[in-house]
């Protein structure tokens, strides 16, 4: 499950240069982020701590199968949790894997999900400042994500506007699991601000909406909870399309991160077929659901689905459109996808260039 795989170092000339759309940086300690909090919120966190919608304050209700959800070999020799040591990240990931650009997606501090909305806003601002000081100022290959307090759309818009001038922040980050489905009207100002700022919205699996992780009750095992994230992505894509977000914002670019992608074509078939039966209910949709997906949505590749017959993935990619896919590793997490192993032989050279680099460069305007 969590075996370290050591690779011989590739020669520079043979390296595949990649854009990695999903790297998880961690604070070495809470103080790394805390120093950017106003005294009032630093004191609040010290006194009360996180108030989220999760049962446990330090993990999800389904304890993970690996410490810090991470590769066993990703713990920095100098100490601190995986993803907290830039020099080690360079040595273990950015350099040997030919990462030309890497998008940071900070997850571990429960900032955006705080029920106390003022606290959420303060934490998001601090986490964005922390990205600048600890990562973006120090490593030109890395790009940041704008964390926002999504349950307070006005504060989220203010945070997007605050960061808009810093082009190293390449996207707005939202979780799929929110208090209401993100397609609901209350969240529209956030999408409007992202479009105005010229930033895609990245939707990375996770979040704490406080709802049961399935539509039919709480499962027992982590293997089920892990999979339920795919269903959240399916519901989220359904929500964004059916509730008319892409009708309101035709220029909005959405990147779905770490949800896989093989489920997308069958979901689009289902949406199209059912739309014909429910069209009187949703007259605001002017296009087939699949057409919005083709126009407005991209998907990162990890954790890539592995069919029993590897060629089946080629069918899926042809249905989805290879131009919808962008490579990601999920470093330093345990289900990391390696750039030299991930697609086997199913992509040609031109398609590889698209998936590993060109589509992301065009989308993000690197």
């Amino acid at each position, binding site marked *: 499950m969590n075996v370290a795989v050591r690779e011989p170092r590739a020669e520079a000339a043979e390296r595949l240069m990649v854009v990695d759309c999903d790297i998880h940086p961690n604070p070495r300690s809470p103080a790394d982020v805390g120093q950017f909090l106003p005294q009032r919120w630093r004191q609040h966190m010290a006194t009360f701590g996180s108030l989220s919608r999760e049962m446990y304050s330090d993990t999800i209700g389904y304890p993970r199968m690996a410490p810090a959800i991470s590769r066993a070999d990703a713990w920095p020799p100098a100490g601190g949790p995986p993803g907290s040591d830039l020099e080690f990240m360079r040595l273990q990931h950015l350099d040997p894997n030919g990462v030309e650009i890497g998008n940071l997606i900070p997850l571990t501090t429960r900032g955006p999900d705080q029920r106390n909305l003022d606290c959420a806003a303060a934490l998001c601002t601090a986490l964005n400042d922390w990205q600048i000081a600890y990562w973006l100022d120090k490593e030109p290959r890395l790009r940041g994500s704008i964390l926002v307090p999504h349950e307070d759309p006005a504060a989220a818009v203010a945070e997007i506007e605050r960061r808009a001038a810093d082009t190293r922040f390449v996207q707005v980050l939202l979780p799929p699991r929110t208090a209401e489905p993100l397609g609901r009207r209350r969240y529209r100002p956030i999408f409007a601000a992202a479009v105005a700022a010229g930033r895609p919205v990245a939707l990375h699996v996770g979040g704490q909406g406080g709802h049961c992780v399935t539509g039919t009750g709480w499962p027992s095992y982590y293997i089920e909870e892990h999979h339920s994230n795919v269903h959240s992505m399916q519901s989220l894509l359904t929500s964004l399309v059916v509730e008319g977000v892409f009708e309101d914002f035709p220029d909005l670019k959405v990147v779905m991160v770490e949800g896989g992608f093989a489920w997308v074509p069958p979901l689009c078939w289902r949406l199209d077929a059912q739309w014909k039966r*429910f069209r009187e209910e949703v007259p605001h949709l002017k296009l087939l659901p699949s057409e919005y997906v083709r126009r407005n949505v991209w998907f990162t590749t990890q954790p890539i689905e592995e069919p029993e017959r590897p060629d089946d993935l080629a069918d899926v990619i042809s249905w989805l459109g290879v131009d919808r896919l962008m490579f990601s590793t999920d470093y330093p997490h345990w289900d990391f996808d390696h750039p030299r192993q991930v697609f086997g032989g199913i992509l040609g050279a031109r398609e590889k260039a698209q998936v590993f680099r060109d589509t992301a460069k065009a989308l993000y305007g690197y």
Partner: protein
Amino acid sequence: MTRDNVSAAPGVEAVGAPFACAPIDCDVHPAVPSIRALLPYLDEVWRQTITLRGIDRLALNLTSYPANAPASVRPDWRAPGGRPGTDLALLQRQALDDFGTRFAICNVMHGAQLLHSEDMCAVLCTAINQWIARELLDRDPRLRASILIPLESPGLAVEEIERCAADPRFVQVLFYVMGGMPLGRRCFWPIYEAAVRHGLPIGVHAGSGYRHPPTSIGWPSYFMEDYVAQSAAFETQLLSFVAEGAFARFPELKVVFIESGFAWLPPFMWRAAKTWRGVRAEVPWVKQAPPDLIRHHLRLTIQPTDAPADPRALDRTLDQIGSEDMLLFSTDYPHAHFEGTQALPRVLADRLGAKVLAENALATYTRLRPQPSQTEVSQ
């Protein structure tokens, strides 16, 4: 493409009656006309309770199944003056005669299965099952039925299964796909033990009692979203059966997903297999890869066939499913999924023929095979 010409966009090409052999329709929906119609099947105490509380004036329609929406009833299958599916003569002509149907499995969807009161739930399920035997099964030898059980009371559910199983025309136990807990959980196992003992597959039909929001991201705004979300719930249930070890514990258990769609199955199996390889230490009783377990235990009805017009996509989906035994013919009468009698996508007709039309159903529902006691009951 604009909204107006989209509706004319072709769906998947399908063939209609007469089929290559008489089909077994694994999803037909007769309906109980009213709670009042159940009063003759209740004892005096319950009859009074139901009447005094005004429950006899209700239908207990599930919100997740809007009875009048186009999705729930095809315009030409509307029962004049009654709820869809309440006119047996109409159903016999439209759902049976027109398709040349050999057997049709009646899934009488009823909100009573989801009542919070365990007692009222069980009593009404019993009444509905008795109504089914009298008003449907006794009146047409082509009809078979699923047993309604109180979904959150395994003990009472087993009692109801034992009671109904004596009648071989009951061929399945019926669940809604969205209930209070995932169906693999061990509290449900007495139900599966009883079902296996009597040769009854577990049917899981689309629909939600809203015990939880229908999606893990909260309450959507539209019926369409709720409907689309059913497939995620089916995936959840499938993974629950696998992860809890229900399939390992009951090697003979058959689970039939009804009105689930099936194009979602291959990517689900790939993801389930990959995650299982990574974290199977958590569920050591799962010794076979999930796709192998699923192919052995799961069957799915074919309507709705959520597939694009290009037949190659459905063709490749069948390859990916990797079994010819899993798909079961269904019309989902009177719900609207297709025109005329064109319930069988051409790709399925060409590749699976009699298997999808009847043989797979006969292999799944052992009670459809001729049995000595069946003749006695029919007489």
